[in-house]
């Protein structure tokens, strides 16, 4: 496969770029694979990538019912941070964040990871206490964060109204190495790398059934025929319940619609990512210049990828209060994605009641930032049967009441 570089571009420019090959192949499914991953989103592709890279398992197919990266990978607000409170979360999100640091070089694909810094505003005494608690936890978890005062907030993000009449900014939890990346590029980069390892990324191939022999998985039925496998990874954010139903078990998961929107592009005015949880809204500026805004989640089960507008209203009015200048910007586009929410709002990375089937789901509203770490840990779990990164996220924690609840510190889930 042709390596990407400025020189390659210059060389191709001379012949009108006629020499570029496909970023990923488009093969016909084989009869059998060592492992099948259902879902060619970021998490599924990353899992396949690390199965090959870290564990030498390359006879792998990634099945995608639509087009790769077309689910939540291509619909999120691209925020990357690891300033989580609970140890298991901090571990996997920080692993993920650190992998993002080198991902472009590792994949030879510019995923545009930009550690521009993420701040979570504290606008009540309760939030101050919560974020100070998180800062203390992060220090012991090896996550670099600090609690900063309002002046520093203003200095890092001049467009914030820190003495807003209703909720003055009292400080913030600041993670300088958090940031954003180009969401599509993450999926495309992994897909290209998987394809390069000889793995099969098979798009427009919907799984219609899961075949078991007694308590063990033996393969899947798809719209492109039956395919056998020894191991099966289900990585289908939003549709996990549907797949689990095929495999014959229920999940502690509900599928809800999460919304986001972007403004028209403007010249750079905001170099950091800001999350304001008291008023429920977060915002960053993309390289194109659009203000990227995350909205709320509907309270009811929904598979339509169409959300309810009042959540957009609530988010926008909150952000106008925090960033008065956006009042005269315009909303260019809004969209929704289906996220799966678990009983404790933390993900599930786990073996399942069916031998050979592994489950990666429940990332709720926070999946994008976790892609490399999730892939790394989940691949380890699938390959070896154990992963320290995944251990605490097992399916049986609900029965034991062993929650990983991120909402406790300052009511911030993800």
């Amino acid at each position, binding site marked *: 496969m042709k390596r990407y570089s400025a020189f390659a571009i210059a060389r191709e420019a001379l012949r009108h770029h006629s020499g570029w090959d496909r970023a990923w192949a488009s093969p016909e499914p084989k009869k059998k694979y060592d492992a099948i991953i259902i879902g060619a989103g970021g998490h599924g592709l990353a899992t396949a990538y690390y199965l090959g890279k870290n564990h030498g398992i390359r006879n792998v197919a990634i099945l995608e019912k639509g087009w790769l990266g077309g689910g939540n990978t291509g619909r999120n607000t691209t925020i990357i941070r690891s300033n989580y409170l609970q140890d298991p979360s901090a571990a996997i999100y920080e692993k993920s964040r650190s992998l993002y640091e080198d991902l472009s070089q590792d994949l030879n694909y510019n995923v545009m990871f930009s550690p521009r810094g993420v701040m979570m505003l504290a606008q009540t005494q309760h939030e101050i206490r919560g974020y100070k608690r998180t800062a203390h936890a992060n220090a012991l978890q090896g996550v670099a964060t600090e609690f900063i005062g309002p002046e520093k907030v203003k200095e890092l993000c001049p467009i914030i109204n820190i003495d807003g009449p209703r909720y003055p900014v009292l400080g913030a939890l600041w993670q300088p190495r958090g940031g954003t990346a180009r969401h599509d590029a993450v999926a495309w980069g992994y897909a290209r790398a998987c394809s390069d390892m000889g793995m099969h990324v098979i798009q427009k191939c919907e799984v219609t059934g899961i075949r078991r022999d007694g308590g063990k998985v033996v393969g899947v039925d798809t719209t492109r025929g039956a395919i056998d496998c020894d191991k099966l990874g289900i990585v289908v954010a939003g549709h996990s*319940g549907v797949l689990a139903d095929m495999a014959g078990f*229920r999940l*502690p998961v*509900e599928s809800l619609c999460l919304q986001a929107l972007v403004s028209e592009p403007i010249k750079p005015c905001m170099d950091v990512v800001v999350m304001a949880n008291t008023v429920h809204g977060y915002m960053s500026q993309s390289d194109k210049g659009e203000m990227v805004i995350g909205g709320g989640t509907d309270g009811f*089960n929904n598979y339509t990828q169409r959300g*309810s*507008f009042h959540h957009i209203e609530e988010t926008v009015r909150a952000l106008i209060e925090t960033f008065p200048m956006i009042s005269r910007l315009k909303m260019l586009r809004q969209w929704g994605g289906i996220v799966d929410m678990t*009983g404790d709002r933390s993900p599930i990375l786990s073996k399942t009641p069916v031998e050979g089937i592994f489950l990666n789901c429940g990332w709720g509203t926070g999946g994008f930032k976790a892609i490399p770490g999730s892939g790394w840990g989940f691949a380890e779990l699938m390959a070896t049967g154990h992963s320290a990164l995944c251990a605490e996220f097992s399916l049986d924690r*609900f029965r034991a009441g062993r929650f990983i609840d991120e909402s406790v510190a300052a009511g911030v889930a993800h």
Partner: protein
Amino acid sequence: MLILQCPCCGVMADETELAAGGEAHLKRFGPGSSDDDFESYLFNRVNPKGVHFERWRHAYGCGKWFHAARCTATLEVFGTYSAQVTEPPQEIRDKISARRPGWRWREFG
């Protein structure tokens, strides 16, 4: 933006007047119940892509809870009904069978 008729006060309620309450017809398991039963009562959900039975509260209205039968794939509403029942009433079932031929019924409670 859903609009549901509250069976308690008859109002066609805007989604902003309602509060969603999750899956309906869950059977409560208390002390003495098995780990399995208690886990599925608290956490495991049908979460279907299709016909769904759910709880709503007319929060900015009469304050009453009620049930709705709704398709999560199209948002079609088959009907709303009393919260004081342990499974969907017959007329709701009939409506669903008519609108979704071949719909696979499950046990309730």
